[in-house]
């Protein structure tokens, strides 16, 4: 038991983000309102972004911008002093993708609303069957 607790404490970042992801996923699966699903989708994506960013953390590291840049060639830069920049780079991409998906999803939601005058999935389906 204490082993598990210790693991959770040592890696609580992952645990939190995974829980967050699952909240988003749950919303996407069970919610019947199209916008709520989009919100769930965003939570899911954001959680993954946070998850990645937390990979980059390094105890004792600082932000990955080299100080005393000009003339900095002279002093050696050591990797341990800076946090891992790669996850941040990757997540910039993921953020953009999330934004783009959000835009497209909203545009689709508007189209759907224009046609059915509602965003509740059940109502839309009953309207499709009715017509």
């Amino acid at each position, binding site marked *: 038991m204490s082993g598990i607790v210790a693991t959770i404490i040592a890696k609580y970042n992952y645990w939190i983000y995974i829980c967050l*992801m699952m909240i988003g*996923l749950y919303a*996407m699966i069970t919610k019947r309102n*199209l916008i709520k*699903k989009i919100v769930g*989708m965003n939570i*899911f*994506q954001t959680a*993954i972004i946070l*998850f*990645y960013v937390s*990979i980059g953390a390094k105890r004792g590291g600082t932000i990955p911008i080299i100080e005393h840049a000009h003339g900095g060639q002279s002093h050696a830069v050591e990797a341990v002093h800076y946090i891992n920049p*790669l*996850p941040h780079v*990757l997540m910039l*991409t*993921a953020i953009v*993708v999330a934004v*783009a*998906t959000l835009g*497209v*999803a909203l545009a*689709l*939601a508007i*189209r*759907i609303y224009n*046609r059915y005058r509602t965003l509740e999935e059940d109502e*839309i389906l009953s309207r*499709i069957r009715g017509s």
Partner: protein
Amino acid sequence: MSHHFPALLVIAPLLSAFFISGAGWLNRRFCLPLAVASLGVAGLSALSLFWRVVQQGPVLYRLGGWDPPWGIAYAVDFLNAPVLVLICIVALLNLWASHRQVEEQFKEKTGAFYTLYVLMVTGLLGITVTGDAFNLYVLLEIASLSGYGLIAMGEDRAPLATLNYVYMGTIGACFYLLGIGYLYIVTGSLNMADIARILPGLYENKAVLTALIICLVGLWLKMAFFPLHVWLPNAYTFAPVPSAALIAPLMTKVMVYVMIRLMLTVFTPGYVFSTLGINDAVVWFAVIAIVMGAILALGQRDLKKMISYIIVAEVGYMVGGAWLGNRAGMTGAILHIINDALMTLCLFLAVAAITYRMKSYTFSSLKGLIRKMPFTMGAFILGGLSIIGVPPTCGFFSKWYLITGALQAGHYGFMAALLFSSLVNVVLFFRIIEIGFFEPFNEGHGHGEHGPEPMNEAPLSILVPLWIVALGLVVVGVYTSEIITHVLQFAIPKAIL
């Protein structure tokens, strides 16, 4: 210049997308020629790359001049070279066949449509050619986003179907991304070859196992592997025909390619097939996919939806074949990527021709069509025969390998499912032929020459590409042995017997 082909392959359509977008604002006449030219350049690059791979072996291209684990690399080998050629051919032929419809249907938005079309092809080419796991994700999103746009422009329920596709597709892509994240945590690398180098020491690691599983689940979502297929039929049915004829042949197939790439290159076959021990379960899922796809296809009353469910079944073919864990099955799966793309294209182009004339694609609009559009229906039937698996069309040969694989693996359930779906396909296509051939009924028992019904064929711009594909089915079938001995047998690692 020649060693820049891997870059040119993706760059040419990408750059043209911006020009097309601009031309859409300034002068729409330039959109189509630009799209054709760029896809042509991509196609030539793909062909010459294919040739180089066959002649000299795999090609590596360092983007930005950085060496692989640090920079992004493109790797063209025996596995993806044929897929690249395939993508270009499908995209070009479909563009040829559907440009009339695009201009009629989209008018002022033609520029935007072609932009997305070319972007989608860029994405698919990139997914196929890249050797970097994260780059693959970005390109996947490009292909998906433009795919959403292309599909949503369809009639009636298209936006709703697309939104469902967006949800499912995003979950799929996110799962893939998460899987790559897990791999990154334990290996520290994003390059496929590099990961494959590091992984053997980590086979006991639970994170690797989880990474594989979530990557697979993500990809299965994207490729509509039963029961994760729910987005596909509606999306493809309500999509405009020009988009459906691009997306249906390529999207699922490229996803299958990615799955095979992960299985063969990233997680080596030894791990996937021996250590993991989920082969049997996956193949059984494929069996269910095939059977359910076939049964659901039987229940449909319009062409596009029927073909969509056939695609669901065909995805089952490929996934099952890849997971049989032997050489024949894997060969069959890879061969089927090529064959199925061509077959689906053939069917969808025929649907495009029918829709162009009849303004509908339900079964009831097919009445008397064999008389009215004999060439279209001829090609459609040829495509159907290939789906059924009649020699010498290519569908027969991939099925042959898949069944051989099932036999060697002793997986009789998969074999039975393949035969079952072939038989169902016979019913599916001959039901259509019956409608086209018999209805409306001749009351007088066929006596007496009927007044010749006017033949009302689709325009040549659809018929010619349609027949190129249809004959291509036979040509590819006859050249199966060449494809296998010169290309595919090198694509599969020697570890798979």
